[in-house]
């Protein structure tokens, strides 16, 4: 099947307005990317990584300096008109529309730019306002909306034209847990209902990327550092797993450090509670079951057990060299 998005050595350089002032900025550097139809694809990267630049090129607002970009198999440079029939885009923190129009009027207006019949548009607006819990704001002036309400309206604006591919630039930027959840679950449901459609989003939020996206590209300095499912990305960083255990009545703690895969072992006695706290740093997980049976064979009981695995954040720090927040 034809990819929803494909780029080949895509680069974008911004030249300074006047030659003397500053140097040129390479916002994208030989990006090769393939996003399949049906995917919820995330671009994760620090400020200035090139995420917005990539979305602008894909949504036909910016030309590549070199390389190629295809959306729905169409060239962004020469076939932008055809691409525009199939896409829509929403940016976080967007203040688009007209403040003196109501929510309904604004959404209707934008739907008209896609030539949608008013009756169809108004019906979709009603349904989607309900989906987003925004029905009672239908007749409120846009300028009176809160950030979250406004962003929900923006996201509705994007989906209401029924695009094949939607580009979302930090759609949950600055939103509270509730508003973010509404937007995220809408995206998931939308893809469930339309299995061939595609969502491409950028984000700063690790958890969002991890829980929401089928695949993630980690981007920094205009380069794609890694691109895979969240699970496989986490496996890629050869990080140690930490195993913490609280056990009772342990006779000999010291022997536990000799099992295979254990890189580091410490224990502390908690006399008040009669507990021993064990902490293993494991190279791999092969020895975990041996450790547990050794503990049990001493007649101990395990009061609590915790295994810490690498998070996407660890992956990110390892790849980019710094965290996001």
């Amino acid at each position, binding site marked *: 099947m034809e990819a929803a998005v494909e780029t080949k050595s895509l680069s974008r350089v*911004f*030249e300074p307005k006047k030659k003397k002032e500053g140097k040129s900025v390479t916002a994208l550097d030989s990006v090769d990317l393939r996003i399949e139809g049906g995917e919820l694809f995330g671009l994760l990267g620090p400020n200035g990584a090139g995420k*917005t630049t990539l979305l*602008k090129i894909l*949504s*036909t*607002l*910016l*030309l590549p300096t070199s390389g190629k970009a295809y959306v729905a198999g169409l060239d962004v440079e020469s076939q932008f*008109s055809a691409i*525009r*029939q199939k*896409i*829509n*885009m929403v*940016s976080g923190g*967007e*203040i*688009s*529309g*007209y403040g*003196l*129009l109501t929510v309904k*009027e604004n959404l*209707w*207006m*934008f*739907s*008209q*730019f*896609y*030539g*949608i*019949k*008013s009756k169809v548009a108004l019906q979709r607006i009603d349904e989607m306002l309900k989906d987003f819990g925004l029905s009672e704001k239908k007749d409120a002036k846009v300028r009176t909306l809160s950030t979250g309400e406004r962003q929900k309206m923006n996201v509705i604006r994007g989906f209401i034209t029924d695009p094949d591919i939607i580009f979302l630039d930090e759609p949950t930027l600055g939103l509270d847990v509730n508003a973010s959840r509404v937007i995220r679950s809408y995206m998931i449901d939308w893809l469930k209902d339309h299995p061939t459609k595609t969502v491409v989003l950028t984000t700063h939020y690790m958890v969002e990327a991890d829980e929401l996206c089928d695949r993630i590209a980690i981007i920094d300095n205009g380069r794609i550092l890694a691109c895979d499912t969240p699970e496989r990305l986490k496996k890629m960083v050869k990080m140690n797993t930490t195993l913490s255990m609280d056990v009772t009545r342990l006779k000999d703690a010291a022997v536990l450090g000799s099992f295979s895969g254990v890189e580091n072992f410490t224990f502390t006695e908690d006399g008040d509670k009669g507990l021993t706290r064990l902490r293993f740093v494991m190279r791999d997980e092969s020895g975990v079951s041996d450790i547990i049976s050794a503990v049990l064979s001493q007649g101990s009981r395990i009061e609590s057990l915790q295994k810490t695995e690498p998070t996407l954040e660890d992956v990110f720090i390892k790849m980019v060299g710094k965290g996001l927040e």
Partner: protein
Amino acid sequence: MSDGWIIKNLRAVKGRAYPRVVGAQREPSWVFFEVLLPLFTVAAYAYVYQFMDARQELIGYVVLGGAMTAFWLNVLWSMAAQFYWEKEIGNLQLYMIAPISRMSILAGMALGGMFSTTVNAASTLVIGALIFNIAFHVVDPVMLIAIFMVTMVALYGMGMMFASLYMLFGREAYHMSNLLTEPVYLASGFYFPVKYLGVFAAAGASFIPITLGLDALRQLFFTSGAGDAFLSLELELGLLLGLCALFMVLAHYSLRYMEYLGKATGRLTLRWQ
């Protein structure tokens, strides 16, 4: 969705005209700027003319010109400069990615603007006529409507062409609009018959459609208009039609080129959008 290209673009026109029309109703302060403000200028000229014992028609010309300034200001600030504001608030990029002609967006702006501005201009005309006791003699209402319509299309067509330039402007947009406001009042003869500027200046000023439009309207509203006319009505109608075509074609190509330039240089959107 099997609707044809024309239907879709007409919907886009309607969509963009809508906020202009309801906006005029929801923002009553606009009435102050578009109806009452021109009257101050009109009054100033009218008193000068009265003081000099000038012909009463001259004051009539001033009232007519004052009413027509509403259109010029609307074209300049709400049409040409509009894309600059739209870029600031992030609408421009949404217009750009929409699968319709940019001309439809601009046509929507123009129609919506024309509608509310006509209401305001008519109010200025009526109030001015009452205050200064002006008598209109309309002999040829068909020609009057024809001239008015053609002037509007040519004028807003010019606005569309300017809009393409403002698309890439930054703050210099302000200066540009200011630069075009006052000198045009002079060049286009808003407050006096343009013929007195001399043939060459008047001919040059005629590229601004409101120049010929005003000259023709003076002839159609006042009996003395013929004596003060720069060109004949028929010629002016023909030239205005030519300007309509010229500006529409220029606007089309200029919009296309400016969009390309904006995409190439990264100035179609603001950096943080």
